[in-house]
C-alpha cells in the first residue's frame, strides 16, 4: 500500500440476509483515504453510506448483516497495514476508538444519560490508554477545552441533559478525538443541529483536523457541507460508488447524471437572477434494494437513459482522467451533449 494511504477499501460487499431476500446494501465499493485528507461520501438515504462507515468499524449488526467480500486495508498508528475485514473481535476493539473513531448523527441520544460527560470521555481514555481515572478526567477537561467548551472543568460533572445539542456534539467530538485517532468517521454529524451550530461544528472539525492531522471520512447528504469540508468526494447510489473525484471536479465538472441531478436539486443563491432556473428534482425514488433494476441502478430515473445500453449490464467504474472515476456507459456522450448545449 502506498505510504500516504491511510485506508484503502477494495470491492467491499455488505449484504443483509433478511426474510424477504438478500439486500445488497453495499455492493462492490472501493475508495481510499490519504493521511490528513477529508473524504466525503454523498448519497440519498438508503444508498449505503452509513453501512459503509459501520463496515469500516466492523459494527454491522450480525445477523442479518455480514461483510461478504472485499478488503479494507488500514494503516494503524504503529504503521502496520491490517485488513480490517480479517481482524477478530478483540483486535477490532483495540482499533475502535483508538485508531478509528466515530461521531454519530444524533448528539441527543449518543451520550449516555446516566453518566456525566466527564465520565464518558474518560471511559474512552481509560479503555485505550490505561490511564487512571484522575489522569483520564484531567485529559477529558483538556479535550473539552480543545473543542471549545467554556469552563471545561466544571462541565465535566455535567450530565448530557444539561447541555444543548451543539455542546453535546462538541462533547462527542471530544470523546472521539480523546485517543488521537488517525481516522475520524463522521456520520452526518451536523444533520440534527440548526444551521448556526452546524457552521460552528464544521469549522471546529476543520480546525481540529489541521491541528491533529487526522483523516476524516465524512458521511453526509448535504452538498453544502461537502463543498465546505471535503478534499475528495465519493457519490454513492444503491450500494455502489457512481462517481469519485476531487471536490472541485465534483461540483464543477460532474460527469455522472446522478451527481448532476443532486447538484441541480440544491437551491442556489449565488447565480444572477436571469440565470436562475426552476429547481430540478430527480424524478422517482431510490429503488427497492431487494429488486434493483437491471443494468445501471439509476437508469429508471436518468434523463439520459438509452434502451439496450443502460439496462443490460452493470457499468464499470471508468477512469476519465485525473482520478475522476465515473460509473456510466454514456458519460462521454453526455459530456459532449452538454458542451454543445452550452
Amino acid at each position, binding site marked *: 500500500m502506498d505510504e500516504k494511504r491511510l485506508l484503502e477499501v477494495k470491492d467491499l460487499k455488505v449484504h443483509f440476509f433478511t426474510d424477504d431476500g438478500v439486500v445488497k446494501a453495499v455492493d462492490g465499493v472501493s475508495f481510499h483515504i490519504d493521511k490528513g485528507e477529508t473524504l466525503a461520501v454523498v448519497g440519498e438515504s438508503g444508498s449505503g453510506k452509513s453501512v459503509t462507515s459501520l463496515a469500516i*468499524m466492523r*459494527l454491522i449488526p450480525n*445477523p442479518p448483516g455480514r461483510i461478504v467480500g472485499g478488503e479494507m486495508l488500514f494503516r494503524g498508528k504503529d504503521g502496520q497495514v491490517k485488513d480490517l475485514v480479517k481482524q*477478530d473481535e478483540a483486535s477490532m*476493539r*483495540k*482499533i*475502535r*476508538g*483508538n485508531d478509528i*473513531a*466515530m461521531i*454519530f*448523527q*444524533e448528539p441527543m*441520544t*449518543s*451520550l*449516555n*444519560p*446516566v*453518566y*456525566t460527560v466527564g465520565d464518558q470521555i474518560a*471511559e*474512552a481514555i481509560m*479503555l*485505550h490508554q490505561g490511564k487512571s481515572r484522575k489522569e483520564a478526567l484531567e485529559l477529558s477537561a483538556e479535550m473539552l477545552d480543545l473543542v*471549545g*467548551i*467554556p*469552563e471545561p472543568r*466544571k*462541565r465535566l*460533572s*455535567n*450530565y448530557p*441533559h*444539561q447541555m*444543548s445539542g*451543539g*455542546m453535546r456534539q*462538541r462533547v*462527542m467530538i471530544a*470523546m472521539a478525538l480523546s485517543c488521537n485517532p488517525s481516522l475520524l468517521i463522521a456520520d452526518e454529524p451536523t444533520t440534527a443541529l440548526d444551521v448556526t451550530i452546524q457552521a*460552528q461544528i464544521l*469549522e*471546529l472539525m*476543520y*480546525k481540529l483536523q*489541521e491541528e491533529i492531522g487526522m483523516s476524516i471520512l465524512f458521511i453526509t447528504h448535504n452538498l453544502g457541507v461537502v463543498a465546505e469540508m471535503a478534499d475528495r468526494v465519493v457519490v454513492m447510489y444503491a450500494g455502489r460508488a457512481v462517481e469519485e473525484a476531487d471536490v472541485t471536479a465534483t461540483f464543477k465538472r460532474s460527469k455522472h447524471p446522478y451527481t448532476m441531478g443532486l447538484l441541480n436539486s440544491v437551491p442556489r443563491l449565488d447565480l444572477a437572477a436571469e440565470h436562475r432556473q426552476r429547481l430540478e428534482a430527480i424524478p422517482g425514488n431510490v429503488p427497492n434494494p431487494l429488486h434493483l433494476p437491471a443494468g445501471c441502478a439509476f437508469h429508471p430515473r436518468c434523463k439520459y437513459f438509452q434502451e439496450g445500453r443502460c439496462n443490460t449490464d452493470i457499468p464499470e467504474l471508468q477512469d476519465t482522467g485525473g482520478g475522476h472515476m465515473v460509473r456510466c456507459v454514456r458519460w462521454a456522450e453526455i459530456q459532449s451533449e452538454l458542451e454543445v448545449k452550452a
Partner: protein
Amino acid sequence: MTRKIEARSQGALQSRSFFQEAWIRFRRHPLARLGGGVLLVLYLGALFADFLAPYPETKSFRDLTFSPPTPVHWRDENGRLTRPYVCAVERKRNLETFKLEFTQNCAQKYTIYFFVQGEPYRFLGFIPANLRLMGGEWLQNEQAHLFLWGTDDFGRDLWGRIWYGARVSLTIGIFATALALLIGVFMGSLSGFFAGKPLTLSIGLFNPAYREFVSRNPLPSLFKTLLWLALWGGLAWLVWVMLSGFWATTRGFEAVVFGVLGVGILLAIAYAVLFPLIKIDLDTIIMRTTEILAAIPDLFLLITLSVLIPQGIPPAMRFYLVVCILSFVNWGGLARVMRGQILQLREMEYAQAAQAMGASDSRVITRHILPGTFTFLIVSVTLAIPGFILAESGLSFIGLGIQEPASSWGLLLSKAQAQGITAFVDRPWLLIPGLFIFIAILSFNFMGDGLRDALDPRAKR
C-alpha cells in the same frame, strides 16, 4: 483559523444528578411521602418488635384464650387523671349463658411503667437486652396481664405478635422480590441481549465449520469444544442411566419401546456433537419458559409447591423455602419487562457509540445498558413487594406458609377465620392483622406511585 470557536456560554450549571432530582420530585409527592413514612414506622416496629412487645413471641396463657383487649384506665374511681393502669382480669363461664366472660377486678391497680426491664431477649439475634416499652413487676409476676389488642386462641398477646409477624410479612416481600429480581433480571437480560442472535451450542467435530473455528483462535476454541463435549456427554450419560434403569425394571414391550427411544436419543446426541452446527435461541427458550409458568394459575402453582415443603422443618428454613417458592412463581413477569427494556436500550445510539469507542460487549451491557434500567427496576420492585406480601399472607392464611409457633400477619389473620363468622361479632380484635396487611400494601403502592413519577426519565426537569 486562530479564532477560538467557543460554544455559547450558558453559565455553568449547578450539577444535580438524576437521583438528586428524583429525590426532590419524590418529596413533592404527598401520598408517596405518607406511604414512605408509614412503611418506615412499620419496618422500625418490626426491627424493635422485642422492645414493643411486653411478652416474648411464644408466651401463651392457656386460661386466657381469646381475651379481649385489656382496658387501660386513665382515671381513678373519682374521675381524676392518673398514670395509666390496668386491672387483673379473670375468665369465668357464665352459668346462665354458658359463655366465657372476662371480668375486671380493680381492687388492685397495676400501673403501667414505660421503658422497664422485662423478659430478656436478644436484639438482632445476638445483642442481649431486656428493655421493653411497657410493663412492670406485676407483668412479670403474672398478677395482671397487658393485652393491648387481646389474645389469640393460645392466649398469646396479639399486639406483640403483630410486630413479631411484621418481621416475617414485611421482609418476605423484600427477600422474595430480591430473589425474583435476581432471576428475572438475569433471565430477562440474557433474553434481551441474545434476542435475534442465536448462540452456538455445539460446533460439530466433523463439520467443516469446526476446522475454521479452531484455526481462528486455537486455544479458546479447544477449551470451548471440551466444555460442550462435557455438557453433551453429561446429557448422554443421564439418558443412559435412565435407559438402563428402565431396562432393569421393565420387561417385554415397554423395554423395547424405551430401548429404541433411548438409543435414538443417544444417536441423535452423537450426531449433534459430531456433524451439525447447533444454534439455539436463548431468547425463545427463556420467554417460552416464562409463558409456561404464566399459563399455570399462580395460586395453584403456589399451593402445589408449598405442599412439597416437608413438615417439621425449623421455621427459619420454612421462611426461606416460602421465599424461594414465591420468587419462582413470580420471576417471569420481571424477566419479560426486563427483556423489553434491554431490547429498547440496546438499540440506543449511545450503546452503539460505546461499541464504536472500543468497549467490549460485556462492558456495553454492564456499564451502558443495565444502568438505564435501574429507574425502571426500582419502581417495579416497589410495586412487586406488596404482591409478595399478599401472596405470603394468602399462603399462611390457608396454612401452607409460615407455621406456628412463628408468626406472620396472614397466619394471625387466619385465627379470625378459624373461629368462623363469630370473629366479626365476638372477637373483632383478631381482624387487626388484616388491617396491617391493608395498610402496608397501600403504603407500598403509594410509594411505588411516587417513585414512578419521580424516576420517570421523561419527567420535566
